[in-house]
């Protein structure tokens, strides 16, 4: 790449808007841009994470596994959305499966190199973390709201749980998933 087109980069990766040009350079130097066909698994639940993936073009979808093979669709992702950012923060396994649903262009920020920037207290790494943290808050609020809705509409959810109960009792030996 010769002269970098920052305005293009800023509009393709909105999260970079929190960073100055030199800081963008720093993050780009630890990232890889790649094309993915539709159906490509970017992240797999339970596997270890390798960094954040930013959808530059195309769409992807997030699923989580429930007990006994049921999958729940959590969200659809489009241009500018970020997944896998939790793996930049801790080392726990990936918490959901993310699959591309169209052909995509993806920017991958590599975890091991990001960790180096972070432990050197590089402002670029922290500005990026800062820019990503509202997304984490958003995610937490959304999950909590979903948990809260179960208790705010107890009657509706009792019916739903009865259905889950019947589903599980016809598929599993024990109805409830074991506690860890």
């Amino acid at each position, binding site marked *: 790449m010769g002269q970098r087109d920052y305005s293009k980069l800023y509009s393709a990766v909105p999260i970079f808007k929190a960073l100055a040009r030199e800081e963008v350079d720093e993050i780009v130097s630890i990232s890889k841009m790649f094309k993915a066909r539709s159906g490509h698994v970017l992240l797999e639940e339970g596997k270890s994470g390798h960094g954040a993936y930013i959808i530059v073009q195309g769409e992807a979808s997030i699923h989580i596994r429930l007990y006994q093979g049921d999958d729940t669709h959590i969200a659809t992702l489009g241009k500018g959305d970020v997944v896998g950012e939790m793996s930049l923060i801790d080392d726990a396994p990936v918490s959901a499966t993310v699959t591309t649903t169209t052909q995509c262009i993806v920017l991958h920020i590599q975890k091991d190199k990001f960790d180096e920037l972070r432990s050197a207290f590089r402002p670029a790494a922290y500005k990026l973390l800062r820019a990503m943290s509202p997304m984490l808050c958003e995610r937490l609020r959304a*999950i909590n709201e979903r948990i809260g809705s179960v208790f705010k509409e107890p009657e509706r959810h009792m019916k739903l749980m009865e259905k889950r109960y019947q589903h599980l009792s016809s598929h599993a030996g024990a109805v409830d998933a074991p506690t860890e």
Partner: protein
Amino acid sequence: MELSSEQLLQVINTVPIFQGLSDREKNTLLAIVRTQEYLPTEELCREGDRGFSLFIICQGTVSIYKEINEDVRELLGESGVGSMIGQVSLIDGKPRSATVTAKTRVMTLECTRDDFERLFNAGSPFAFKILDQISIHLVARIRNANKQLYSLYSRPTETLMKLHALCMNIQRSISDTYDSIEISDLTKDDE
């Protein structure tokens, strides 16, 4: 209770998130944050309020509640020394997502959103460390909430029992209200 700066330094030295900060960083911190004491049952913040400070618990234990309706609140958990309250509002500036009350006598350090902003933009390692802690904590909470959601749907018997208990509680509080209306109506008639 007003603490001297040496006493404060002693307190924060026992709080894990301040470990690893240099003395200079600790002094910067103490120059900007505010200490506050709470008595048992006193509220640090209430769900829905627009207050964007971060509280760091230096002494005591707090209880965290989700408001279900006016009469029913569900205890989400308790937090002790070293934990932070209000990270989410500090980051996204949205109203508080839970009510937090003092369970015992509690002492907190309070860092406002502006303070944090200023420190962060100045490239202060303290602000970076706080952000580190906030991020780690947020991610842990997301993973935990995910687990809770997973078990609500994957352990329907248990969920049904909880919902049943909740319905009983709501019914009880409704009939309590009904009783009190009847009583006040009767008194009115007497007048």
